[in-house]
Structure formats: C-alpha cells, structure tokens
C-alpha cells in the first residue's frame, strides 16, 4: 500500500452555532485522485476550507493528519508550505498586487528563490499549458477577471506551487465547455508533473472526463454516505443524489 498523504478521522466542524460536518472520515494516499460529490449544503466546501484552516470553521472534534503531521495545529500559511493547496471557488480580488508579483512571493514562501528571468520562463511554460496570455502576469490579482480567467489563474498557481495535495473546490462551476477542458488539461499536467494527490469537489462530472479517478465519495448532511470507484460518478450522473439524502 502506498503512503498516506491525508487522513481525516471523525471530523466535526461548525460555523457559529451550526454543525456542518458530523464525523467525516477520509483517507487520501500519494498520487491518488479523489472526487467528492454531494448536494448543495452537504458540507463539501466546508471540508475544503477546514483543511485550509479558515478561521470561522471551528473543528469541535476529530483529527486530520497531513504528511504525517497534525494539520490542525498549523496556521493557514504553514499548511500551504507543507504542501496543501486549495483552488478557491471564488478567488478574492487583491487590488494593486500583480499576478506575477504574487506568485513570485508564493514561490519564495515555498523556499524556491528564482531570478526574475527564471520565474518568467517557468511561468510562461505553465501558462502555455493553460492557453493563458503572458500579459496576465501584469494584471492585478483576480481584479476584473472573468469567472474562467479566475479559475485559470488558480490552476496556474497550482502548477507553479506544485503541492503534495490539491483541493479543487468547484473549479469547474460556471465554466463553458472549452474552459472546463483547459482547466482539466491543467489538472492533468499537475498530476503528470508532480505525481501529487487531488481532492476534486464538484457537482458536475465534466471536469472528470479526462482524469483518472481512484475513489468517489458522496457527502450528505455532513458525513460520507457512499463510496465507490469511478463508476459511481456515472451512476450519480444518471440518478442524482436522491437515494443518499435523508438516510
């Protein structure tokens, strides 16, 4: 059996008074791709933000081990430096900070000092994968980006940072067919270049078409109610979530 990248045990999370995750278990091994599906409000995005350490998400019980260490003891930036990455569903706009400057800073934070020239070269290569124009580098981070541009910029950062585990939170939502294909190409490139693991949170299946999926989990009401191999994706595609809800 391969090495465990992430282990979640009996995780309970609440926001304010509201309990969202109610004893969730999940295990992701090196190089694996997991898909998390579920109806709206099931707790999918809560899982992503809890892993990343957003302050409103209060872990009331349970344990998360990432790369053999206690993830919950780390601040958000420490988690990122340990090799965790999340592609945001709605990346915030940061006026005045250029994409190039930001990504250079993140690469530096990861311990990878690059000269400006080397950075531009590496960035250019990854942008080619995503069909992004180099002028993006000079634009302010996410400011005025369309939905598709924001998602591409997220995947661009994924390729630059080369994390051990990437969480893609609804990266395909709101994108047209071409944009989904581009993002999907980028994710494939990440798998090939780094051999890293993936957790793909989605409620559509288009992004999964060209990816090899190891395991599919269905979340409903804060726990995993069903698991299976990639065939589960097709099943849900056909029959929806009804049979998993309210049990």
């Amino acid at each position, binding site marked *: 059996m391969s090495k465990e990248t992430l282990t979640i045990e009996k995780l309970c999370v609440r926001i304010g008074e509201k309990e969202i995750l109610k004893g969730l278990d999940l295990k992701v091994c090196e190089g694996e791709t997991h898909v998390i599906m579920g109806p709206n409000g099931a707790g999918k995005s809560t899982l992503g933000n809890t892993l*990343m350490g*957003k*302050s409103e998400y209060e872990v009331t019980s349970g344990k998360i081990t990432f790369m053999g260490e206690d993830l919950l003891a780390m*601040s*958000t*930036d420490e*988690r*990122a*430096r340990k090799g965790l*990455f*999340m592609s*945001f569903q709605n*990346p*915030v706009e*940061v*006026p*005045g*900070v*250029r994409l190039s*400057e*930001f990504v250079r*800073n*993140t690469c530096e*934070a*990861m311990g990878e000092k690059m000269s400006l020239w080397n950075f531009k070269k590496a960035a250019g290569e990854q942008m080619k994968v995503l069909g992004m124009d180099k002028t993006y580098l*000079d634009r*302010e981070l996410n400011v005025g980006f369309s939905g598709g541009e924001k998602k591409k910029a997220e995947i661009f*950062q994924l390729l630059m*940072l080369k994390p051990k585990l990437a969480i893609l939170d609804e990266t395909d939502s709101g994108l047209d067919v071409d944009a989904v294909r581009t993002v999907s190409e980028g994710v494939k490139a990440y798998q090939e270049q780094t051999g890293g693991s993936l957790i793909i949170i989605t409620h559509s299946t288009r992004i999964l078409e060209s990816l090899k999926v190891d395991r599919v989990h269905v979340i409903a009401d804060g726990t995993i109610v069903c698991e299976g191999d990639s065939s589960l994706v097709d099943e849900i595609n056909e029959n929806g979530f009804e049979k998993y809800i309210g049990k």
Partner: protein
Amino acid sequence: MSGNLIINSLVPPTWNRLKVNEYELPLPGTLQQDTAADAFKTAGAGTAEGSLHIQTGCGKELSDALKEKGIIPKQILIKGPELVTSKIDYSGDAADVICIKAEEGQTLNILTDITSSADKAAGVLQILIEAAKGSVVNLSQLVRAGRDFTFVNDIGVVLEDGAGFNLSQVFAEGGRIISGYMALLSGEGSSSNVHAGLVRKASQFIDMNYVMRHTAPSTRSETYVSGALMEGGSKTFRGTIDFVKGCAGAEGAENENMLLLDDTVINKTVPLILCDEENVAGSHGASIGRPAEDMLYYMMSRGITRERALKILEKASLDSAVSYISDEKAREYVSSAIEGI
C-alpha cells in the same frame, strides 16, 4: 499672528472642529531657486523665462508668497514624447515655479523624482501646465525625500478641447508632504486622470487637496487614491469634483482605498461633489480599514505569512499608482525605485 500660509483650502468649508478646512504652512524666510529648473535642464529640456497664470490646488496664498519671495517662473521646453526625467534633489530650502506648455496635438512624458540630501529643509515645487487642443501630458511623480523633509508639491493644469492630463504620483518617503492639484477642464471633451499611491509611517503625514473643475461639456475626471497608514502615519485627502454650470455631459469619479494597519494612524477623507448642472454624473467611493480577512486568508493559503501578506498589500498601495504610468521607461524607473520598500 504667525506668518503661516493658509493653503489646501476646502471650498466650501465644513465644520471647523474636524480640522480639515485648510492646511497651515510655515514657509521658510529665504528660498533658493532653480533647483528644479536645473534638473530639467540636466534632463535635456530647454528653459526660458515666461510664466503662466493658472490656479493650483494649494491656492492663491502659496502663489502670492512665491511671487513675493522673488521666485521667477521658468518655462520648460520639451519637444516630443521622449521621456524627460527630472531628478530633483533638495540640499536646502528651495522653491521653483515650472511652466510647461503642450502644443496642439503634442504628447509629453515627464517624470519628476524628488529626493533630499538635506534634512530639516523644505522644498516647494509648483508645476503649471497648459495643454493645448488634443495634447496629452503624462506626468509621473516619485517622492522619496528624507524623513525630516517638507515637500510642497503644487500642480495647476488648464486643458483645452480634447486635451488629456494623466498624473501618477507615488508618495513613498518624505516626512511632510503637502500636495495640491487643480485641473481646469475648460476644453470640451478634456480629461484628467489621477492615480496617487501613498505609504505613511513613523509619524509622516500627507495633506492633499485635489480639485477637478469641470467647466466645459463632456469633460471627464477620474481620481484614485490608494494608501497604507501605520506607526503614527496620517493622511488628509480632500477631493472635490466641481461641476460648473455649462458642463453638461460631464462625468467625474473619485475613489479611495486606504489600509489602516494599526490604531496610531489618522485617516481623513473629504470627498466633495459640487453640482451646478443637471446632466452630469458624479460618484465617489471610499473603503477604509484593515485588509479584509478573506484577502489575507487567500494569500496565506498560498504559503505567505500574515506579516508578509500585509507587507505586500502595503507596497500594492504604491504599485497601483505605478501601474497607471503609461510611459514604459517611466514605469520601470519608478517600479525599480520602490522595489526595496
């Protein structure tokens, strides 16, 4: 009464107790002149005698005082769009009145870089610009003088039909900065674009008075201020969009984004919209406070520490003004000058 000048006056004024109606400037007794004019000469521009009568943001009291102190206006002759970089270093109390005329259809690119080799001194730089029909003047200003230096930066621009004035200001260093700007949009379809970025810390302050006076139809003004305050830094920004009767179809927008990084700072924002004409559109928006938690979370999720993220945002306040410098050489110059900040 002291001999202080009352400048940067708010017109019309508001409640006195808020102390935003004006700035009181103690002007040194003797002022050396030609520091700035010589810097323009060194940059390759021609100079000549000649003055312009243009209202400025600091106002009449300053103009009168300069005249009284015998400061002779110098006209700067610039032929084409090639960037003129004027490096002005103050070695003592000094004042200049610089006049620039852009001829019809001409494009001028000017950069002033303010430094000081003398501390505890004051420099006054008044720039008067006449932009003829269809001309474009791009003025970029970088201020990085010493912590004990007082810099008075006073601009007045008159715009004829279709003329455009683009001002990018980067207030990175300098103890006390008093900045005035007045654009008289008297030509149909003329425009004023201002982007100012500022960082004030260690008890530095800046007092700004920017007036965009629309007197002709279909004129446009946009004014953006972004800044970061910390460690006792303070800022007053007065921005007045003045729609005078006859400016039908004019549009004016003002926007301010201020980051306050601790509770020793003072941030005053006074964004006036005066309107004497029906068919105009004026707007103002301000956002003042600490950086949004969502933004910090996003940056930290990419491995950047909180402290580093704040630093990046601080510098971004300057960068957002830099990115609007249209001349590439000027942009590179300013960008690399503030790299280490």
